[in-house]
């Protein structure tokens, strides 16, 4: 009733295969984008930008990247934190070395560097599979974090071992450093999230995505029907790391401003992003956004409720958060392995028939 496809006739192949086949969806999406671009930047304040919207957009980019690897190509990776660190350090070195070039290009280049590193660590995936590979990607995580900690060249020999984002602007607006306004930070993250989601969506429904999914569903069978596992797996690692590198670059340059590799890009970050992908929905771009939103909002909501509402100590709230996150992972895996994205799909199905379910 509310959500209808009746009267929505497709007359061309192009119309039939668009991302949002239903007119209602299309208009809802356009409305959302209009609000995001035309309204939010004018009402956003520092708290909303730093606590919710900017981390949400950055984590969404990282989750899309990991979702391509885990959800579409079926290669479980626990090295996300390490790859985000590559993006962060790459953008740092580039923006310090070439101050004349716009930082947007640095961020994209940082993604490219991360893609190369990701493909290098993806090479073993040709021989080892499943959780053997998951454990192998931990090698990337620990090695990269150690590397950025130990080699002073990466942090330009700074005394603290930290990297600090230099002040850079895009179209006259400061986007990094202390002078950046919340709106500018939000807008640049939104722009990247939009482009990444758009590329990912179109990659995953094209030939590349089908190859990834064939490898995921059964790699030997895929090989027999002519999917080259070498190119399929390496492109998955490359594209995934590209997005994760961009997320890492934004996370450092726009969100944190200063970072220390062990704290900002430790193993916990890898798990956090994996959880976003599981809760949001494996193999779904929308799920990556939903999972990122969920995992960003959950701690904020719990903190407001437990610490702000009940007056409980902060550490207790943090432990309960661990329990809830862990419990939710298990519940989602048991009850709804396709995550929030599948719940959303089911809701739409129900609304389509409402109020007559039969």
């Amino acid at each position, binding site marked *: 009733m509310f959500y209808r496809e009746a009267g929505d006739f497709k007359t061309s192949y192009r119309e039939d295969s668009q991302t949002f086949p239903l007119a209602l969806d299309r208009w809802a999406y356009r409305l959302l984008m209009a609000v995001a671009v035309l309204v939010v930047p004018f009402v956003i304040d520092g708290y909303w930008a730093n606590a919710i919207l900017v981390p949400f957009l950055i984590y969404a980019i990282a989750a899309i990247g990991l979702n391509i690897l885990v959800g579409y190509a*079926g290669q*479980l990776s626990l090295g996300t934190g390490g790859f985000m660190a590559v993006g962060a350090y790459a953008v740092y070195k580039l923006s310090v070395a070439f101050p004349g070039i716009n930082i947007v290009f640095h961020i994209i280049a940082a993604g490219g560097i991360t893609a190369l590193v990701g493909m290098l660590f993806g*090479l*073993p995936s040709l*021989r*080892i*599979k*499943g*959780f*053997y590979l*998951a*454990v*192998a990607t*931990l*090698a990337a995580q*620990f*090695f990269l*974090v*150690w590397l950025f*900690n*130990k*080699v002073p060249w990466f942090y330009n020999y700074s005394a603290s071992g930290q990297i600090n984002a230099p002040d850079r602007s895009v179209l006259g607006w400061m986007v990094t450093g202390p002078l950046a306004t919340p709106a500018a930070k939000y807008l640049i993250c939104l722009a990247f999230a939009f482009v990444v989601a758009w590329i990912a969506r179109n990659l995953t429904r094209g030939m590349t995505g089908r190859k990834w999914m064939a490898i995921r569903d*059964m790699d*030997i*069978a895929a090989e*027999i029907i002519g999917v080259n596992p070498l190119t399929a797996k390496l492109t998955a690692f490359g594209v995934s790391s590209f997005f994760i590198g961009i997320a890492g670059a934004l996370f450092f340059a726009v969100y944190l401003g200063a970072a220390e590799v062990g704290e900002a890009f430790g*193993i916990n970050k890898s*798990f956090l992003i*994996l959880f976003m992908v*599981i809760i949001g929905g494996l193999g779904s771009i929308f799920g990556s956004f939903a999972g990122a939103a969920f995992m960003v909002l959950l701690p904020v909501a719990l903190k407001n409720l437990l610490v702000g509402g*009940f*007056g*409980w*100590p902060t*550490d*207790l709230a943090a*432990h*309960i*958060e*661990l*329990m*809830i*996150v*862990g*419990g*939710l*992972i*298990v519940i989602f*895996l*048991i009850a709804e*392995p396709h995550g929030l994205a599948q719940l959303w799909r089911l809701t739409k199905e129900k609304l389509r028939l409402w109020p007559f379910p039969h």
Partner: protein
Amino acid sequence: MDQLLYAAEVVANGLMAGVMYALVALGFVLIYKASGVFNYAQGVLCLFAALTLVGIQQGQVPFAHLINAITGGHLDHFGWTVPSALAIVLTAAVMVGVAWAVNILILRHLVNQPPIILFMATIGLAYFLEGLGDVMWGADVKTLDIGIPQGVSETIEGWTDRAFGYGFFIDRLDLVATAVATALVAALVLFSQYTKQGRAMRAVADDHQAALSVGISLRFIWVLVWSIAGFVALVAGIMWGTKSGVQFSLSLIALKALPVLMLGGFTSIPGAIIGGLIIGVGEKLFEYFVGPMIGGATENWFAYVLALLFLVFRPQGLFGERIIERV
């Protein structure tokens, strides 16, 4: 000559460290063999067991923080201490309870799911148990003392000093750990070879379907296996807790055990032990010879990179079963 002797000491210490890794790795192997679940939560089980042991031993009120937060009270200790032996038995009982709950609440619902899903479920379990342990017993660093001797063994130092003119520094705790690990492995082998339950366990490990069809209760065997793994976690938790205190970082030893498993093969108990020894010796030697040249702290990643390189050439590990894939 001195350098050689020093290297020998490094090797000896590496062997001891390897035994400690192998203790954790054993728990992984047991569960993987019997149920095909790669249990990421094994390290957190160690932490949880150690926390529970300290809590029971010192008479802490479980959930004291939570109760205090809700009621505004000041509960902390019951005011008694429990003897170590009794505390260990009680903790073992708690671990059996955990095993039972994990089976009822999680594994039963995930039968026939792909291994990756089960793996991710155990990551969720790890987070949950970690939070639960902290909420139950508090997150502060605790010392675990059940009377295991610690510190440098003077006997060995004096003996080697007389023999080679160079005193070996070996921690007595490591010697105890080696003895305990040997006893544990012997007990596990005897159990699986000579008891009815042990035979059933091996049957399940071999083929679930066939084991079911000859009347073995899969559910019981899984609870049994997880209980044994919980007990192994308790032993490992005691050793590691005595060595470095009971705190969050204890759960990270699971991450140390993973490369051990990859090297030794997921399905092999001897593999876990040999893998542990190789990694223990390898990372100590690498840190000693190569570490100073590249900035040290190589122990964080050496095990992983070694295991990764090894797997590229032999994907099933040293003693793992050959992976045969069919469409």
